[in-house]
Structure formats: C-alpha cells, structure tokens
C-alpha cells in the first residue's frame, strides 16, 4: 500500500513534469529555446530566401550560392577551377580566364569572398574572391553570377590575406602569406631571414565597370601576412593585417614560428601611400602577371600579360605603416562596424586581443614607440590595447559583428562560437559547433552595416553529423539565429568543397538585378550567327568552322558533310532563344572537352577532332523542351582528300 502511494505520487509528479514540458514548448514556439527550429529555417515551396550566401568552395576553387535561412544550394559558380557542367575552362571562350604567368592553371584554392560596398554598406554589385595557391583575385558579377575578371598577383605566394574591399570599394587588397624572394631568384632557403619579402597589393577598382588594376605593392618584411581587414568609418583609409612568423623561420614553422610571445598587426595608412604614389612615388619593377577579362558582349575572355608593377618600400613613406604587437600568431583580423576596434585572434592564445584605433592614433601622434622592425615603428602593446576577452575558448580564429554592439568569435580547438560584448569584453553566450569551426559569417558582418539576424559557422570537420560517404565526408555550414541574447542553432547543411569563408547579403539587394538572358542584338561574338538563315560551314585548310544556331528544338545545320579525317572542327554555337531559363547544351561523340551550356543569346565554341571516318552524332545536352530528344544531328567524316563536298543542311534544305 505504501508502495502504491509512492507510485501514485510518482505518477502525479510525472504528469506534472509532462505539463511543464508542454508549457515550455508553447513558449518555444514564441521564439525562446528549441522547439520550432524547423519552422524558422523552413522556406516553403515557391517562397524565396531572405538572404543570399556566397560560400567559398575552398579547395574546390569555386563559389557556391546558397539561400538563407533554408541552406538551399542554387548554383556553384566556377571561378578558379574548370567546370565541365558549365564548360568553364573547356570552351574556347573561357580558357583565357584561367591563364596565368605559369600558363593555363585548371585548379585553384578559393578562400575569402567579399561583396562590394558603397559607404561601408553592401551594394550587391560584385563578389571578389582570392585564390591562395597561384595568387589571383577574381570578380564575380551579381547580374550574371559569373566570373568576369581574374587578375594574377605577382611577387606573392599563398595569397591569403585577401580579397577584402574598402568602404567604397576603392581597393580590393591581396597579401602574401608565404614571403618569397622578390624578384624570384635562385638562393639558399636558409638565407630567408632579411631577404624574403612580403608583398601587400592594392588593386584599384573602377567604380563603374568594376575592373581591377594592380596599383601598387608594399614590400613588407618577410613575415607571413595571414588575414586582413580594412578600416571602417573612422578608420577608413587604413588597412590592418595580422602577421605570424615574425621570427622569419623557413622550416618547421609549427615550432619555429611560435617562438615570439607576440607577433604584429600591421596597420597601413593606404591613403597616405596612395598619395605618395599619385605624386610619383614608388618604383616600377619587372613582373609578369595575367589579367583576364570576360565580356558579356563578345561572350569571350581575353588575357593580357602585364610586365611591370609599382612597388613601395615602407621606409620611403614614413608615417604610413606601424606594427601593433598582438599575442601568439594572430590569425583573424577583424574591425568592428564603427572602425574603432581591431580584433586580433591569436590562434595559440588563450585570449582575444582588441586594439583601439583611437589609442593607436594617439600613440602615433605622441611617437610612443617600443622599437622598430625593418624601419617600421612598433607601438607599445599596452598603449594600443582596448581590452581583452579573457579565456573565452581555445583557438580563437575569426570575429564578425551584429551591429548591436556584439562580437562573435569562432574557436577552432574548442569547436564553438562565442558571443561577447564590445567595450566590456564580457562573454554573453557560447554555442558548440559540429566540429572545428573556421570562419563565421553574418550578412554584412564585416561591414559598417551588419544585418544581424543569422550567423553561419563554417566547419572543417563533420565526422558523424551526416550519413557517411566513405573516407571523405562533407564539410558543413551551421545556421544560428542571433536575434536573441542567446544564439540558437537552427540548421546545419552540407557545403561544396571546404566552406572557407562566406559573404551574405539581403536578397532584395541582388535578386532584382539578376539577368534573365542575353540580347541577341548585343551579341558581338566574332563567330556569332544571329539568324538561322546565316548558318554556314567554312573550311580553312585542315580547320573547319561551323556557324551553328540552336532554338527549340533543332540545330541549324543538323547535317554536315565534307569533313575529312584529321580536320579540327570548331563548333561556334549561338542560342537564338530570347526567353528566360531556356539554355541549350551541345556535345559531340568523342569530343576531348566538355559540353557547352549556352544561355539564351549567347555564343560558345567547342573543338572536335575528326579522327575517324564515319557519321558521328551530336545532341542537345540540356533538357530544353518537349522535343529535346529530337534535338540532334550528324557530321559525316570522309577520308582525307575525299571529293565529298562541304555542305550543310537542315531538313535537307
């Protein structure tokens, strides 16, 4: 009986508990903890996401376009790596995009996308992104969502402290991670110290066209320049770079570059250097680097090899460059929206160090220097320190801001995002990531105007988070709601390649400008055929040019005869459609290249080698219409010297 009473009481308690949990779940649906997470990242069929996220593909070399909060993948924009799906780097028009001073490079390592800004606010015109391995900066149009420009960066290696834009996109910058001999020469590796240089590059951006021009390179001491951030607002006109390996070690850097208690944040007054250069300062030196531009009129890229670059020695511009001591090999270098705070995350440090721009100016004005390195004044750590976030986690990497006075820092070793308050440096919240987070992104979170609704953490390791796919498993992004005091994990979603860094922007700043198709009347491709009546096949020795058109649902011509063994056949194919979302594709049996995927109004070219006699088919590779399967044709290849005349037809006419 006692036992019965006991059970009765226990059951009541159980019921009470269940009521309690029921109550709390009702609160959850109003926006507190847990509960309705799925709803808050759910975008109903047919509805649009609130934000675009441009997520770097890391070692995939590309840039993927996601929607937030849904995490839906819309497109993978090929940037530094060839892409057979879109013929990028395969068709004759885009091969030049991947030209470098080393020749054609089919792969790249894309790292840091950054969206163009006006007055420190995202303007949604272009995305810039750097290639780490063969140093380059690319510009992607947010009208066509295609890569429209790639410029190589000379005197640079491991182009990592890149590609960030100033408040008005005056410059996009690139910085070397691996210092190298400048100019390159044969010399002993162990003579690194004092001889290698770290080039920091400033690329002027044309305010109308967006075209980049390498204005000048600052030849800094041979440290590793890891990350960079432009000054914002009050610090506009400055650029800040974290450095490590101020030891100038050339081997076993994991030990030898971790000797100094503090490395530096380099503060560079670029306006001062810009003025110096404008007045004839700096020295031209020979350099070889490619500048590749894609035209939406010719639908073709051109590559120009540049031959010199303007270099600036720090000692020649006194008062333009200073070193701010920062503990333990700082990685992330982030400036808050006001421009006052410069956050340096020492990746081996237990703390996050925050410098004050105001204090920095004051120390400079009063010439309070602790010493100098290669002629560059070093400020006193205490003089420029704004505050320290004490022991917030292990392995701090990157910080972004919500525009409400809060900062969010990732911690690689302890796998978490930590929210802390600017000014008081107190930790407000921490949330785990799954696992080993690198960068994080808040739309606009590195600008003067963050859109502080969501935070995306980008993880290097996922292990058990998804269905396994053999030894290689996906990397991931995680979406947090940051509108409340506490962060809430809403969603995690797989990414393409390594989600190294990302840039986010409200969709309404971009979507209305998205191009629907290319106007045929504007098509200036030298091999364009703008009317089906004008199709032709032209022989020039062993080279044959086919001027072809495509429209639902046929090619013109679709029968070609008179091709001979050994001919090199160029198919120049124009999509005559003038309708949204009606691309056509084409490929040919045995082609040693990719398909073409041709947008309405566009012309593209692939090469086919007529190696064997016979009759060889080609077809449309993109399911275009109800008669897509009928969209096919044949090429007859005759023996060399055959008297079969060159002719072409559609419907035998």
């Amino acid at each position, binding site marked *: 009986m006692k036992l019965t009473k006991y*059970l*009765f009481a226990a*059951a009541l308690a159980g019921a009470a508990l269940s009521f309690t*949990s029921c109550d709390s779940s009702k609160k959850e649906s109003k926006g507190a903890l847990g509960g309705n997470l799925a709803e808050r990242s759910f975008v109903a069929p*047919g509805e649009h996401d609130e934000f675009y996220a441009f997520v770097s593909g890391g070692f995939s070399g590309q840039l993927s376009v996601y929607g937030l909060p849904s995490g839906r993948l819309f497109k993978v924009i090929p940037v530094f790596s060839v892409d057979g799906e879109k013929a990028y780097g395969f068709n004759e028009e885009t091969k030049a995009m991947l030209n470098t001073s080393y020749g054609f490079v089919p792969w790249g390592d894309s790292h840091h996308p950054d969206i163009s800004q006006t007055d420190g606010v995202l303007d949604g015109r272009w995305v810039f992104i750097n290639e780490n391995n063969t140093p380059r900066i690319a510009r992607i149009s947010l009208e066509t969502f295609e890569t429209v420009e790639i410029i190589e960066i000379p005197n640079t290696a491991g182009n990592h402290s890149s590609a960030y834009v100033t408040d008005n996109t005056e410059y996009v910058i690139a910085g070397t991670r691996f210092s190298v001999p400048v100019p390159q020469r044969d010399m002993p590796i162990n003579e690194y110290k004092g001889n290698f240089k770290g080039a920091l590059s400033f690329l002027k951006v044309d305010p109308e066209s967006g075209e980049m021009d390498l204005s000048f390179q600052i030849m800094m001491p041979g440290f590793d320049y890891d990350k960079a951030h432009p000054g914002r607002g009050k610090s506009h006109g400055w650029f800040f770079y974290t450095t490590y390996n101020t030891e100038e070690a050339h081997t076993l850097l994991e030990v030898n570059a971790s000797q100094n208690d503090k490395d530096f944040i380099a503060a560079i007054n670029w306006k001062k250097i810009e003025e110096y250069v404008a007045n004839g300062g700096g020295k031209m030196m020979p350099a070889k680097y490619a500048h590749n531009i894609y035209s939406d009129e010719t639908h073709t890229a051109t590559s120009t090899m540049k031959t010199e670059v303007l270099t600036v020695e720090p000692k020649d511009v006194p008062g333009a460059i200073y070193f701010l001591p920062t503990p333990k090999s700082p990685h992330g270098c982030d400036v808050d929206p006001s421009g006052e705070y410069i956050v340096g995350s020492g990746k081996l440090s237990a703390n996050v160090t925050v410098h004050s721009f105001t204090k920095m100016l004051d120390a400079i004005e009063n010439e309070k220097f602790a010493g100098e390195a290669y002629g560059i004044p070093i400020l006193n750590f205490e003089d420029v320190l704004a505050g320290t976030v004490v022991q917030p986690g292990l392995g701090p990497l990157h910080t972004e801001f919500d525009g409400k006075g809060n900062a969010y820092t990732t911690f690689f070793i302890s796998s978490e995002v930590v929210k802390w308050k600017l000014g008081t440096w107190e930790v407000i919240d921490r949330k785990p990531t799954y696992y080993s987070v690198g960068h994080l992104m808040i739309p606009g979170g590195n600008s003067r105007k963050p859109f502080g609704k969501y935070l995306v953490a980008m993880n290097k390791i996922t292990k058990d988070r998804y269905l396994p796919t053999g030894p290689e498993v996906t990397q991931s992004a995680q979406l947090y709601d940051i509108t409340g005091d506490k962060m809430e994990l809403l969603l995690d979603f797989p990414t393409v390649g390594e989600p190294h860094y990302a840039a986010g922007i409200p969709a309404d700043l971009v979507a209305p400008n998205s191009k629907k198709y290319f106007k045929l009347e504007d098509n200036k491709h030298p091999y364009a055929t703008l009317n089906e009546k004008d199709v032709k096949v032209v022989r020039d020795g062993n080279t044959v040019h086919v001027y072809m058109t495509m429209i639902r*649902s046929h090619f013109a011509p679709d029968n070609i005869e008179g091709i001979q063994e050994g001919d090199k056949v160029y198919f120049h194919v124009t999509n005559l459609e*003038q309708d949204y979302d009606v691309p056509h594709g084409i490929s040919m049996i045995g082609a040693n290249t990719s398909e073409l995927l041709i947008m309405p109004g566009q012309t593209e070219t692939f090469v086919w080698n007529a190696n064997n006699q016979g009759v060889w088919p080609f077809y449309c590779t993109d399911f275009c219409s109800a008669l897509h399967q009928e969209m096919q044709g044949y090429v007859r290849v005759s023996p060399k010297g055959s008297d079969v005349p060159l002719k072409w037809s559609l419907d035998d006419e």
Partner: protein
Amino acid sequence: MKTTIYSLFVAGALIIFSACTSSETQEGGTESSNVTTDNTPLGQASVVDSESDPNILQVAIGSPDHTTLVAAVQAAHIEHILVNAGPLTVFAPTNAAFDKLPEGTVETLLKPENVGDLTKILTRHAAPGSYNIEALKKEVRKGRNKLYMATDDYFEITVEGDDVYVNGAKVLASIQTSNGIVNVVDEVLLPKE
C-alpha cells in the same frame, strides 16, 4: 492491484504527453498548409517576366482580336500550357471566328460544368513543334501535310496560291513568340465529321 494502479498512471502520463505532441503537430500542420495551399493553378503562367520576348499566352492576351480565345483559355485554366517551354504552335481563332459558331455555343462552353469540353476544343488548336506559315508550306511541299494536334487529331494542311489552310481554316498571320508560334486563323478548328 499495485501493478494496475501503476499502469494506469503511466498511461495517464503518456496520454498527456501524446496530447501535447499532437497539438504541436496540428499547429505545425496548419501553418504549413497555409503556405503550401497557396499554389496557383496558373503554374508557370504566374511567372513575372517583362524582359524576355513575349510567350504565346502574352501575345494572345495582347491581341484585341483574341479576347474570346483568351477568356476561353482562362475559363479552361490552361494558361500554364501556353507558357511552357514548348515548342508549341497555337492556331488562334479570332473573335470573328468564334462569332461564326452557332449562337450560344461560346456562352455554353464557358460555363464551369463544360470545362472538359472547352479544354478539349482549345487543346485541339495546339500542335507540338514550331510551324509558321512558311514551315506549313514546306510541310505541304514535302508531302507531310498531316499536322498532329495535341488532342491526337491529324489536321490537313492545304495550300491555295499564297494561302495556307489548316483543317479548312485560313492562316491569316504567323507570330513568332518566345516559346513557339501563334498562327491566327479565321475559323475555330473542329474535328471534321
């Protein structure tokens, strides 16, 4: 006895739990149905696109001579067919062509209960492929003078002088659209008895 009491209360607690759960599910269900039942029967016809070349539906809507046809298409809810990737050739009877039908025919067809008949009649005016006047002449020239319609009918194409007729209806003009051809005709295409 003790066991019974225990079970009862466990069951009670479970009910509470499940009630809780089910109410949540309902809430969620209601919310999602609110957003998903919004789906318009217009399908692709609801896409806003003022930049691309006009499609068959847009051309028809823009033509003052085809108000009856457009009203019929809308009554039959087949707008989405006319904006599809196609390619499609649509024979578009003018208002005058509809006027030639026995009095009351159009009014009767437009009644909701006759939507099936209306749809079939309209669908009979569409052929897969792109056939403008020149292409229709070529079909005749090449002996391919039977045009397959979307309703499984074959209509004869005939040429008299410069004029082209389909099933006896004269093709007055061809208009190229982004997703096919609109051929204006002076008769409603009805199956030959």
